[in-house]
């Protein structure tokens, strides 16, 4: 029993311990290697880091829920791009332009609605056809990207609205707007997963779907709701980011699904479902961004970032396997 608790603490704490190691390493190494005079742990630098983690971070939160539920979503990058286009394009419609700054909440609403609908389409197909979520979202990753091009054409779409840019660049209590959205989303989702029936059922379905069905849990609506949620979050990520940048390229968001999954796995969530936590994912997202920034800080070539992140992901998997093996000798073959 105690060894179990010890293992649990080790698992939940691992990502935060890793972040501490990163901070220490880059601070010390930065003293010798960095070309900048600023310390790595500079407060403003850390605030910026949180802001930069937001786009992938918000998506990764949704991916955590999808994976706890035992599914996966490969279409988030395309959903992100499509929502961004709806956001920027809708503000140029005459009807919205006539509304002045009131167009902003409407454009946000339209973009978020787009994301939720795209998620709902995925969820409905997974639910009603019984085709594996991996295949369904692999298909819609292509399909949604096609829609992006059909709506937008091949040229980038730009629309800068200065009220919107001011809002996106604002700092409230020190944190940037994007950071607020990331942290608020994390808080709400954490409450949802730990304090509500839906959260509990999502864990149950991911852990043992058959048992969940036998216990009278309706699997379909829960899955559906989770897909709507991740679509919404991908759109939220897009509106937060593109409110500031104001320009979207039809290829934007490619490979986001893989980055988000990497962050989620780094946070310790199981691909097989039933296990994971929102807070740990937040840790995973921050750890990756810290690595990017840190390697840049000590003057390592940016190319090495991908290499290091990939190898860390595999190392985490190896470690996790060792930890699990100690507890219950290998049962699965």
């Amino acid at each position, binding site marked *: 029993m105690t060894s179990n608790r010890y293992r649990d603490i080790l698992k939940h704490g691992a990502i935060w311990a890793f972040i501490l190691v990163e901070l220490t390493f880059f601070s010390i190494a930065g003293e010798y290697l960095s070309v900048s005079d600023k310390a790595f742990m500079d407060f403003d630098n850390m605030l910026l880091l949180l802001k930069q983690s937001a786009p992938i971070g918000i998506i990764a939160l949704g991916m955590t829920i999808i994976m706890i539920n035992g599914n996966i979503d*490969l279409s988030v990058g395309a959903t992100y791009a499509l929502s961004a286009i709806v956001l920027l394009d809708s503000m140029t419609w005459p009807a919205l332009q006539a509304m002045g700054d009131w167009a902003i909440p409407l454009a946000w609403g339209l973009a978020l609605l787009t994301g939720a609908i795209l998620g709902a389409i995925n969820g409905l197909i997974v639910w009603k056809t*019984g085709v594996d979520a991996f295949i369904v979202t692999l*298909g819609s990753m292509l399909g949604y*990207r096609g829609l992006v091009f059909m709506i937008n054409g091949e040229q980038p779409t730009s629309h800068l609205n200065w009220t919107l840019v001011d809002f996106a660049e604002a700092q409230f209590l020190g944190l940037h707007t994007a950071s607020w959205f990331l942290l608020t989303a994390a808080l709400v989702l954490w409450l949802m997963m730990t304090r509500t029936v839906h959260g509990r059922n999502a864990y149950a379905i991911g852990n043992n779907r058959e048992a969940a069905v036998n216990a009278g849990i309706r699997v379909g609506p829960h899955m559906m709701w989770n897909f709507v949620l991740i679509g919404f979050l991908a759109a939220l990520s897009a509106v937060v980011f593109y409110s500031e940048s104001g320009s979207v390229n039809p290829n934007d968001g490619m490979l986001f699904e893989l980055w988000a*999954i990497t962050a989620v796995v780094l946070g310790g969530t199981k*691909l097989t479902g039933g296990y994971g936590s929102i807070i740990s994912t937040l840790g995973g997202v921050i750890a990756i961004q810290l690595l990017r920034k840190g390697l840049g800080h000590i003057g390592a*070539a940016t190319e090495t970032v991908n290499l290091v992140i990939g190898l860390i992901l595999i190392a985490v*998997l190896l470690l996790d396997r060792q930890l699990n093996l100690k507890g219950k000798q290998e049962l699965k073959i």
Partner: protein
Amino acid sequence: MTGMTKQRIGNILAKQGILIAFAVFMIGFAIANQRFIAIDNISGVIRSSAILGVMALGVTFVVIGGNFDLSVGSMMSFSTIVVLDLHDKLGPALAIPAMFGLTMALGAFIGFLVGYMKLNSLIVTLGMLSAIHGLTLTWSGGKNMDIADKAGTWFSVFGQGRILGVPVPILIFAGLAIFFTVVLMKTPFGRKVYAVGGNGQAATFSGIPRARIVFLTYVISAFCVATAGLLQASRSLGSQNTVGQGMELQVLAAVILGGASLMGGSGTIFKTVIGVLILGFIQNGLLLMGLAFYVQYVVTWGIIILAVWLDVAAKRGRLWSPTA
């Protein structure tokens, strides 16, 4: 009686659905545009599908063995960059085997992790996608790679040459497809791949060395990726670092379209080839109809889901999922 007939029609649709769909598409496109069935158009489509196709052959082994390989796109970029770089440094005769060796070493590393260390293949190959991309960028310094003397090298024969009028990429693709069909169908190794993917536990109990079989499927996949990299490099004689980006999912789409189950244990080389050709001909057919290239994305989406849905529906005997 009608129930039986319905069941049988369902079975035929599920088993041969992909061939029927292929035929329908070909006839439809041929009626829409005569040029579609011209010999040089067909040969052009197969030729440009060859790179994706060769990669799909290797991934078919991995998928039948019950695993994923998401690293093939990134690995293809690696082998393309490496062979182009070594071409000018060592000469083509040494560059090609060196590139095959390096790429297959990467495949062996993945095979070791998934086979012997029993790690989740989706995450391992996801990690390797990123790691190999970093490796490629480090190798090239982030710059595009070009062969200095493009006109004077025989290296271009693999991607651009013809033997008896047939483009070499088609010959390589067809040759490998036949060879791997024989390996999969006629050798003990092939049967073991099916056994391991179909029921890993049962396979282990009947004395099949599961770890080694899985390991070998990844080495085969890496060999195919190296071949694809050779074709790509030889065709363009220069390349960006991201030439294979996103191809892992296209390859997977082709393999799934061919009817291989992601749970492992089923799929054939022949059907994968059909899957590759369907993707290639749809792209070509839509372009000939004057539609933009991205329309094929949406069409492919529909086809993938319909194909797998039909398959799943036939297996459970009803169209809609019973999930409440």
